[in-house]
Each structure stands twice: as C-alpha cells, then as structure tokens.
C-alpha cells in the first residue's frame, strides 16, 4: 500500500471565495485512518482554517456527514484505505446550503422536525407516574428500526427530490413520525397524518430509494414513507366510505 493518499477537499470561505473550490492535500494512508482522521490531519498539520463538524468519531452523534466521492457518508466511519490509491474527493453534503468549507446549514431540517410531532402523544397524559407502559419485545421491534436515526442528514443529501423541492419534509423526519406511530405507547398517529397528508408531506417522495441505501443506521426511510402513503390512502378511503359514526 502507498504511504500517502491525495484528498481533494472542497473549500468555501464566504469572506474569500465567491463559490466553493476544490483544494488538494496529501495525507498519510494508514489502515486505521478514516476520512475524518485525514481531515483532522490536514487541520492539525497543513491548514488549521479547514472547517468541518465532528464529535463522537464513533458513528453515533451524526455530525460528520459529508459527500465522499459523491456519496453521502459518515466520515468517521469511512476508511481512507477503501479509496486507495485515491484521490478521495470530500465535499459538503449535497442539497444543503454551504456555510463554510464542509459545513452545511441544516436549519431547514431542524425547523421541519417538530412539525411531525416526534414525541409520545397520549390522551391520558398523566403527570404522576406509578409504573411503566407495558411493551412486549415484539411491540418494541415494530418501531425499533425507525428509532435508530441519528439525524445525520445523509438521506437528505441523497434524495434528489429534497434537492429539487426543499419544501419536501424529507426522509428522516417522516421516518421519525413513523417511529412514533408504530410505538405501542403512542396515540398520535392521527395528528401526524394531518401533517404528512399535505403535498409537502409524503407525496413528494417518488421512491428513489437512495435515502435508504445511504443510511448508515439502516433506518429505511424509503420504506417508512411508502408505508405512510399506504396508511394515508387507507385512512382517506375509510373516511370517504364509512359514515362518521363507524369511524374510529
């Protein structure tokens, strides 16, 4: 194996560049090094102005998403050696506005998330707690996959629909809505349906499926969205056909 690898990093400094430009660096190539280690090496040894987000370096905090050779990846879980002999192209996550270098603005997601009400909704909202809600392992399993989302935004970067139509609520938020809908403790699916049945809700998704392919936590937002469409359709048909009295 070569002992170094070229990294082509997209830089954008609002006070210096009018648009993002690729800059070439050379970093040591070690088997245990991730793309993030490469970036940190550049920052420590070559150019301390290089900016990017990271924190846990163990694939769980969701901050270090970037496009690596065109694919959205968690850079702390992507190894340089998989790209040998290089070069490795590192760009900010696609579909988001770039704030600086590899840092994108995810305010849009942060504003969308509360809209799908990702919290337990109960009709019997009690404040005094004297025991747990019973939930069998099967009931837990029903929503577990959708509870694994780390909000890393890779799915948004992979979804062309989100890129072209930023009004689309988007994969992770819908997967989280589904996570609460499927939770046996929750009673809020009606409220969430009212949000997601709008055209910015689930209907924008044309089942490209890339969100699921890139998700590092196997959340399967694509599946969640299609199931949501089915649910929305079923409920609509029910509401249309059944007289009010018979509806739940």
């Amino acid at each position, binding site marked *: 194996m070569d002992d170094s690898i070229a990294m082509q990093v997209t830089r954008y400094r609002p006070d210096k560049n009018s648009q993002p430009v690729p800059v070439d660096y050379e970093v040591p190539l070690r088997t245990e090094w991730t793309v993030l280690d490469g970036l940190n090496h550049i920052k420590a040894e070559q150019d301390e102005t290089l900016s990017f987000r990271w924190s846990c370096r163990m694939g769980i905090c969701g901050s270090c998403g970037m496009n690596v050779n065109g694919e959205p990846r968690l850079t702390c879980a992507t190894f340089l050696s998989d790209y040998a002999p290089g070069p490795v192209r590192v760009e900010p996550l696609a579909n988001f*506005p770039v*704030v600086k270098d590899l840092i994108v*603005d995810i305010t849009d997601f942060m504003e969308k998330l509360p809209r799908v009400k990702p919290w337990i909704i109960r009709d019997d909202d009690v404040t005094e707690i004297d025991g747990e809600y019973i939930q069998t392992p099967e009931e837990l399993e029903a929503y577990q996959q959708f509870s694994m989302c780390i909000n890393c935004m890779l799915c948004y970067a992979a979804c*062309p629909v989100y890129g072209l139509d930023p009004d689309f609520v988007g994969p992770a938020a819908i997967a989280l809505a589904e996570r609460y809908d499927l939770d046996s403790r929750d009673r809020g699916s009606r409220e969430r349906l009212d949000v997601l049945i709008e055209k910015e809700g689930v209907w924008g998704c044309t089942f490209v499926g890339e969100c699921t392919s890139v998700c590092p936590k196997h959340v399967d937002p*694509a599946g969640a969205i299609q199931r949501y469409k089915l649910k929305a359709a079923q409920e609509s048909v029910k509401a249309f056909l059944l007289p009010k009295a018979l509806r739940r």
Partner: protein
Amino acid sequence: MSAPVTRVPSYQRRIGVFWWVHKRSYFLFVMRELSSIFVAWFVVYLLMFVAAVAGGQQRYDEFLDRATSPLLLVVNAVGLAFLVLHTVTWFALTPKAMVLRLGGRRVPGTAMLAAQYVALAVVSAFIYWLVVKA
C-alpha cells in the same frame, strides 16, 4: 422548542438539469420513471387494437400490417424494454413499501417477490390462453 431564527449567510448550490446522468442509481431511477410514457403508449396501442378488431377483418389486417413497420417494431421493442424495467423495479419495491403480516410474523421480502412473479406467470398464461387458445 424553537430556535431563534437568524438567517445564516450561505452558498446555495444549483442542481443541473442533468443531475441524473452522473450517478447510476439516479439514472436508473429516471429511466424507471420514464417507463410511464410507454405505459401510456401501450394503453393507446391496446385501444387501437381493440378498435381494429371490432372494425372487421379488413381493418384488423391493416392494423397488423402497420404493426410490422420497422418504426413501430422499434418503438414497441424499446417500449417493451421499459415495461420490463417497470415490472422488475415495481416488484422489487413492493416488499419495501409494505409490510405483510401472516400469523403475527412479517412475511419475508423474498417470499413477496416470488409471489408477484408467480402472479405474473399465472396472469400471462391466462391472457395467452384467452387470446390464442380459447
């Protein structure tokens, strides 16, 4: 909870019209979606066929004649390819889009996939029989 809104100055990248040619998965996706044109076309073709058959032996023969023109053959061949793409992708996506439960167990994706191909075979055989044999 809400965050105070301050607009962050940022660079907005533009997506080109040909965003889908650079990546295999995006390309396949757009091809899959374009199959819709041929679905519409074949519906029209089917109607023309029905009209021709109903119009009597002569119109029917004319129809068959026109259908063997190289242009139509090419269009239909391309259309069939897209249709196959539609069928294959549609079947592949169904198990991802819905969860079937039998006796409390989730039906595995491969079983749903297989079931769809069986349905395809049965329907095809039936229609073949209807048109050709019965």
